[in-house]
């Protein structure tokens, strides 16, 4: 009683805590708006029990605390995949106070398709019309007042990129949160469909007294559409089997009557409604028909002859600029760590700390973790460039251009995006395979993804090429990337033959208009990646540096980092396996084992072990242990061998079995060994040393 009263009271007052979901089609500026609203107060995690990333952020607005949840972008709310189910689950179960749909004014009709579904779900909706300026340039003027009136929903015009209309939006959100009136629009699907809807609705209402009114309508429609989420929700009910057969009968009846499938029937009605709506709210002026600059560029980038060469040039520029831009910064970072190291050792000596502490700090921690942190610039810049390619809209064109070639290895254009992302990190690369519909396509793309040389392997190449191939550094590294791609293509071909010849996932991808990526958006994205990297350096890499240091220092009495230490003994045992590949020294073996946790650890391991040789830099130490040929062979091995633990974990999660990650460990190592063998032995045959 009291509780109910308190609850009542809570709703009467202006709410001080508001939960808002941000949703919308892909490429409508959702992340830009999210960044503009929450600035730096963001939190990235996972949706409970799901592998899909969850982002939320906070805003304090005149004493009201607003929580924004960034929902995955999608075209429709019917859940066929886990990702699509998130928005519906959020709206229905987390009972947000407001749901903001960001709507692209240039593409109002398609965006409204989702709006209608949100209204059908009785979501407390606010529409934020974005990119209105671009639409106006195209000659499309959206009458937002009328739209608001017709949909009975607040509509605000915003410009997410220039941060215009943000305050108006926030005020509309706050106003909506205190107002529980739902939009009263009800779509009618025509007599035939309505009859079936009514029948199913009545059936549920009769058998399930707890079901709320507004939920009933929505569940009925979703049942017809075959939504997985509704199935998950109802599967435990006693009436489920009867309901399912009733639904199936209704669907097949409708499909025979209309002569098309159920999606077509429903889409027809929804788009019919939208068409009526948009003739009233969109005023089209005749477009000049003149080709603008972006269209000319697009013609070039997707040209049938130039498309692929242009892409190769872009890829090459991407790697070149990653190096040239990061080089001076890396030099700075390096001197910084040397400076810090010297200071700490002076301090340590002045307080007369025991020798082993000096060694742990200087050899273990600074040698290991510091060595890794100098690579922050190169990784940051690589991620920056990949983000620019994605945000500008070019990535979708690459998928288009590559589709033809990808079909040859039994994949489709969209499978190319996970591969490109793999150059940054294989973990997001593997997660991006979700865009592929069929299981065998996904598995194939996952299995070849680790051959895309990730950002963590790059520091190893930089170190080795710096020592052995300083004149051709860029080319040598580029050759490794190409080798990775070639191996991926060959293996893709092989797996396609083995796995299945079943039909491929359909290739359907939107080519969004070109846009300048927003600077803040890019910076936030890059900062997230760098922060993850620093965290990794502070945890996994730190731990491993200490373990390697301990292995290199004990048993007690041995000289640090010598053959007699534990590390030396372990390395000695394994080294013969790598002898035919040209790097049979025990240090390499230890480095390769530790590289299993994360590829960057290879450097920190070398750093830790070789620090034993007083005064000599890592480069000099490497030169004493490798020849240019064995260095190249070593890099080939690093490129291809076991992916890191994080990748294996994500493969386990995505394929839902241990079978594939374990398979991956063996087959990649086998390929790595074979390729390094060919490179090293072939090199000797041709007279390289």
């Amino acid at each position, binding site marked *: 009683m009291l509780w109910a009263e308190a609850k009542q009271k809570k709703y009467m007052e202006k709410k001080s805590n508001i939960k808002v979901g941000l949703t919308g089609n892909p490429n409508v500026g959702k992340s830009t708006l999210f960044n503009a609203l929450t600035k730096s107060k963001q939190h990235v995690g996972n949706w409970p029990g799901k592998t899909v990333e969850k982002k939320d952020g906070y805003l304090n607005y005149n004493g009201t605390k607003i929580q924004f949840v960034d929902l995955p972008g999608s075209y429709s709310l019917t859940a*066929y995949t886990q990702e699509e189910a998130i928005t519906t689950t959020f709206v229905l179960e987390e009972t947000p106070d407001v749901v903001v749909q960001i709507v692209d004014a240039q593409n109002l009709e398609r965006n409204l398709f989702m709006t209608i579904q949100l209204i059908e779900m009785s979501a407390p909706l606010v529409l934020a019309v974005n990119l209105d300026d671009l639409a106006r340039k195209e000659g499309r003027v959206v009458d937002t007042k009328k739209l608001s009136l017709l949909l009975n929903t607040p509509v605000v015009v915003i410009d997410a990129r220039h941060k215009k209309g943000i305050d108006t939006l926030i005020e509309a959100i706050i106003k909506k949160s205190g107002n529980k009136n739902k939009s009263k629009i009800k779509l009618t699907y025509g007599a035939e469909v309505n009859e079936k809807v009514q029948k199913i609705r009545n059936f549920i209402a009769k058998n399930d007294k707890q079901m709320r009114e507004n939920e009933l309508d929505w569940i009925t429609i979703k049942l017809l559409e075959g939504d997985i989420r509704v199935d998950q929700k109802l599967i435990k009910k006693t009436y489920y089997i009867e309901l399912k057969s009733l639904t199936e009968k209704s669907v097949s009846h409708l499909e025979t009557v209309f002569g098309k499938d159920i999606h077509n029937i429903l889409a027809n009605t929804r788009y019919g409604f939208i068409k009526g709506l948009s003739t009233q709210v969109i005023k089209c002026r005749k477009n000049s028909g003149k080709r603008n600059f972006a269209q000319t560029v697009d013609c070039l980038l997707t040209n049938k002859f130039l498309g692929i060469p242009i892409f190769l040039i872009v890829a090459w520029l991407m790697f070149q600029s990653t190096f040239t831009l990061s080089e001076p910064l890396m030099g700075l970072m390096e001197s910084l760590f040397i400076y810090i190291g010297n200071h700490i050792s002076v301090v340590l000596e002045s307080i007369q700390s025991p020798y082993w502490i000096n060694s742990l700090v200087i050899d273990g921690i600074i040698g290991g973790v510091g060595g890794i942190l100098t690579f922050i610039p190169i990784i940051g810049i690589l991620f920056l460039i990949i983000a620019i390619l994605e945000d500008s809209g070019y990535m979708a064109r690459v998928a288009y251009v590559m589709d033809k070639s990808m079909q040859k290895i039994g994949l489709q254009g969209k499978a190319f995006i996970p591969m490109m992302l793999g150059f940054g990190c294989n973990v997001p690369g593997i997660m991006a395979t979700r865009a592929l*519909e069929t299981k065998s396509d996904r598995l194939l793309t996952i299995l070849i993804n680790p051959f895309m040389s990730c950002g963590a392997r790059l520091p190893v190449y930089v170190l080795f090429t710096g020592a052995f191939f300083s004149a051709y550094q860029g080319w040598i590294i580029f050759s490794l990337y190409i080798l990775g791609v070639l191996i991926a293509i060959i293996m893709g071909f092989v797996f396609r033959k083995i796995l299945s010849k079943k039909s491929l996932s359909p290739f359907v991808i939107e080519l*969004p208009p070109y846009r300048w990526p927003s600077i803040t958006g890019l910076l936030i994205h890059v900062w997230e990646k760098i922060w993850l990297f620093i965290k990794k350096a502070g945890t996994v890499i730190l731990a491993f540096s200490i373990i390697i240091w301990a292995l290199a220092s004990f048993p007690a009495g041995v000289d640090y980092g010598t053959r007699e230490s534990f590390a030396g003994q372990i390395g000695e045992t394994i080294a013969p396996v790598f002898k035919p590949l040209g790097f049979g020294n025990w240090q390499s073996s230890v480095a390769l084992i530790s590289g299993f946790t994360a590829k960057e650890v290879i450097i920190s391991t070398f750093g830790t072990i070789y620090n034993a040789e007083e005064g000599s830099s890592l480069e000099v130490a490497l030169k004493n242990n490798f020849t240019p040929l064995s260095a190249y062979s070593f890099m080939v091995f690093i490129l291809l061998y076991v992916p890191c633990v994080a990748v294996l974990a994500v493969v386990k999660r995505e394929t839902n079995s241990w079978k594939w990650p374990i398979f991956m460990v063996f087959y990649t190592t086998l390929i790595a060994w074979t390729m390094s063998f060919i490179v090293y032995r072939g090199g000797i045959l041709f007279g390289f040393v």
Partner: protein
Amino acid sequence: MNLEKALPDFNDGEKIKVVSVNCGRNLSRRLCDLGLFEGTEIEILKNDNFGPIIIKILNSKIALGRGEAEKIYGEKI
């Protein structure tokens, strides 16, 4: 009647009314979400006679694999 052709048989710039979509359920509903179903009007933006084709649905550019496009029939308007 003989005006009905599969999408890859049309040329750049031709405006088409979709007559039938004969692809699998999954693709068909993806296309519905994007606004392509029987009765909609689309435009062929780019057909290179190999590889995917680019079409305009509503106001957006969509690249569609050639194999998929072959299952969609339309007539010129």
